[in-house]
């Protein structure tokens, strides 16, 4: 029973957080200052997601095989290698390092 309660709360809460913005502020053009902020939300959040997905393990900061994989991917992307190929190489680098260590 408690499990189902957890599932319901997580499902409703997640949908609420995703939809409050679209429902309340949808389709309206915000003031110029707010537009500039919104333009920067994407780079901020994407950068944070990359850091959280690469350099953290729970609440610990770590540098492991993922960092090497990301570095390899970043170098390839910088030289305009297609994303799918960069992802593949990053995963291979990461997996090889994990096998070796």
């Amino acid at each position, binding site marked *: 029973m408690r499990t189902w309660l*957890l599932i319901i709360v997580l499902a409703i809460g997640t949908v609420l957080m995703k939809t409050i913005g679209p429902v309340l502020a949808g389709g309206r053009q*915000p003031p110029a200052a707010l537009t500039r902020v919104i333009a920067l*939300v994407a780079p901020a*959040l994407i950068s944070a997601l990359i*850091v*959280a997905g690469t350099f953290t393990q729970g609440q610990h900061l770590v540098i492991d095989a993922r960092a090497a994989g*990301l570095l390899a991917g970043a170098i390839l992307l910088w030289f305009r290698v297609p994303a799918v190929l960069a*992802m593949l190489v990053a995963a291979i680098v990461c997996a090889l390092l994990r096998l070796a260590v």
Partner: protein
Amino acid sequence: MKWSIKAWPEGLRTSLPLVLPTAAIGLSFGLLAGPLLGAIPTIVMSAVVWSGTAQFGALTILTSGGGTALAAGTGLLANTRFLPMGFAIAPSMSGRPLRRLLTGALLADASFVIGHRDGGRFDISAIAWAAPPQYVGWVGGTIAGVSGATAIGEPTRWGIDVLFSVFYLSLLLPELFPERVRRGERQGSSHAGAASSGRRAWRPRNLRPIIVAVLAAAITLILTPIAPPGVPVLVAASAALIGLRTPKRPVTADADDDV
């Protein structure tokens, strides 16, 4: 009726490379949560919550002996980043509130990244079309996980988790260094249609996205050891508040000599 992947909606095409990595992480979740929650609740959870961060967050609490309320709180806190995401995509949306609500519910990290365009605009149809492949991957992966697809072992061993970081980076770089990585070239030809006029031209340097990205990365690193999961990413979004300051020069002006 010529069958061609190029005729597919852009969001669908762009998110296809994510099906397998999403399924792999869903499989991890199924493997870990199945024995604790039961097979059916685990699958239902992936189907109705559809959020890796919230589900892993809640699972971590449960496995470490925490109660249901704490697990729910942790899971929801991990998802608070959807609030700024929702408000960011809102101005680009149209249609009645119900339609906006349904589209907003399709929002996910990868769709947000896929749908974001220059200057704070979002391609809402790309966001919506990016959802099905990830949903199928997530739920399908979970089903495989609880069914005991242990033959390949823990998939995160094989470097699958780094795929998301590289994918996100591929969509962030064009925004930070527009003159370096041309949008029309990333992901092979998949964005050829989106590379319309002006994308190839050198643009004046706008340093703000770079500053914001570095600041957000620093905030995430500093807060990770001291804040609950999810909070660092939420607080990192506040780096965007730099935009409240009026730019000294309009970024469209000839500012290429900057730094």
